[in-house]
């Protein structure tokens, strides 16, 4: 279910609404600024947390993002969706906070090595896994895998927009999605492990 699925609005309507709000923000409309924040802050906050690992730095990145939006709304050229533009700014602000170091990467080598003995193909493991196990495995993924999965399945961005946010070709995004899935599947407990617990 993407972010529009429950509300019955089309992505085009959402984008139109965002553009209207951003135009008003560019004209100094404080209410529009607040409305834009209310529409996207939760998703951006979750994204920043995925990138930074903790709430405190994520809140600061969110602040930096919207301060940048207020000052640069007029510079939006419409080459991407407003939501994509916001995620791009959020990403830059979050990465500034990790300057000099990589995105926080939680080691998964142990989990992968255990799962690598599993005889089942990754799709079979994933198709049989329950959602909680998938969620737990997601948190153990490297940050760049978590990022692409979150943008695709939590933020609901299309592959082309994810490519813009990450600054990589569309093919790279698709490739990362497959790699992320494979890594996550390997981190899942196999059927034998589940029954032994």
């Amino acid at each position, binding site marked *: 279910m993407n972010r529009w699925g429950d509300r019955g609005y089309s992505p085009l309507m959402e984008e139109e609404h965002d553009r209207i709000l951003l135009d008003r923000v560019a004209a100094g409309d404080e209410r529009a600024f607040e409305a834009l924040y209310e529409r996207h802050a939760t998703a951006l906050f979750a994204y920043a947390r995925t990138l930074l690992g903790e709430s405190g730095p994520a*809140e600061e990145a969110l602040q930096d993002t919207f301060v940048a939006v*207020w000052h640069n709304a007029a510079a939006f050229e419409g080459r991407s969706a407003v939501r994509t533009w916001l995620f791009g700014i959020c990403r830059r602000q979050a990465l500034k906070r990790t300057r000099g170091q990589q995105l926080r990467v939680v080691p998964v080598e142990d989990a992968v090595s255990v799962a690598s003995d599993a005889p089942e193909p990754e799709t079979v493991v994933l198709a049989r896994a329950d959602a909680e196990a998938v969620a737990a495995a997601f948190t153990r993924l490297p940050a760049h895998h978590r990022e692409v999965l*979150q943008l695709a399945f939590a933020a609901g961005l299309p592959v082309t927009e994810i490519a813009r946010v990450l600054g990589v070709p569309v093919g790279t995004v*698709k490739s990362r999605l497959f790699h992320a899935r494979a890594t996550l599947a390997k981190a899942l407990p196999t059927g034998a492990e589940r029954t032994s617990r």
Partner: protein
Amino acid sequence: MSHPTDLLAAYAMRELPPDTVAALERHLADCPDCRRDLTAWRHLATGVQIATATTPPPPAVFAVIRRRVNIAPRIPVYAGQVAGHPLRRMAALLPWQWWLVRWPVWVTAGVVLILGTVIAALSPFSAEVMAMLVPLITAATVAASCGADTDPAGELTRATLTSPRTVLLARLTTVLSTMTVASLAASLALTLPDGARDGFALVGAWLGPLVPLCALSFALSVLWRTSVGVGAALTLWSLRPLSGTDLVGDWITVPVERIWTPDTAVILIAVALVAASCYLAPLRPLRRSRSV
């Protein structure tokens, strides 16, 4: 169609065009491997959504953003319609004042007015009796209903959007109107049966002193205490029979007579006194009702 592996992720993300979706779903119906692959993507999507589900950022975050971009905190402004047309507001305000006056005040005023009318009917000096009674009853009723220390809804009305001055003026208007109509009815009852009494003279006898006496009791009860307003009206009332006699000097007789037979200047002073009291009333500290 060969296995459309590269389309399944986009299908799970709901970003495929309808014609591609139709073709893919036809393939899925016959291909258990692709169905399993799609299930894997969907499980992945659900797991990611669970893992990244988060609460909104704390409200303090936006407050900091506001401060950083120099947006002053927005003060909520009531944007609804506060009331309707002024005439409609007045029409709604006046009858409610009737209910905000304590019922013993109305009962006492009614009983004394009826008794006074009976005495006036039995007396050959009915105009004098009415001139003595009606202003006193009305002034006492005004003091008892408008006094700051006898208003049970005073605190509540101060908290409403309507100005306390408007409420006070509406209260005075309601009480004066009620008492005047009742006194006119009493005068009519005295005049009609035999036609011996001059109705206009009868009404003129009590209507003249009613204005300054009520203004005085209103001012004192609103700005000081109800008891002071009633006491002032009662004092003037008791001085009236004594004026012109040897018991009191001219310094008392002259003002009392001017009040009882007011000219234009006295009426204007009375109106000014009421206006000043209405203006000053909200400025004085709210005094807790003694009965509470």
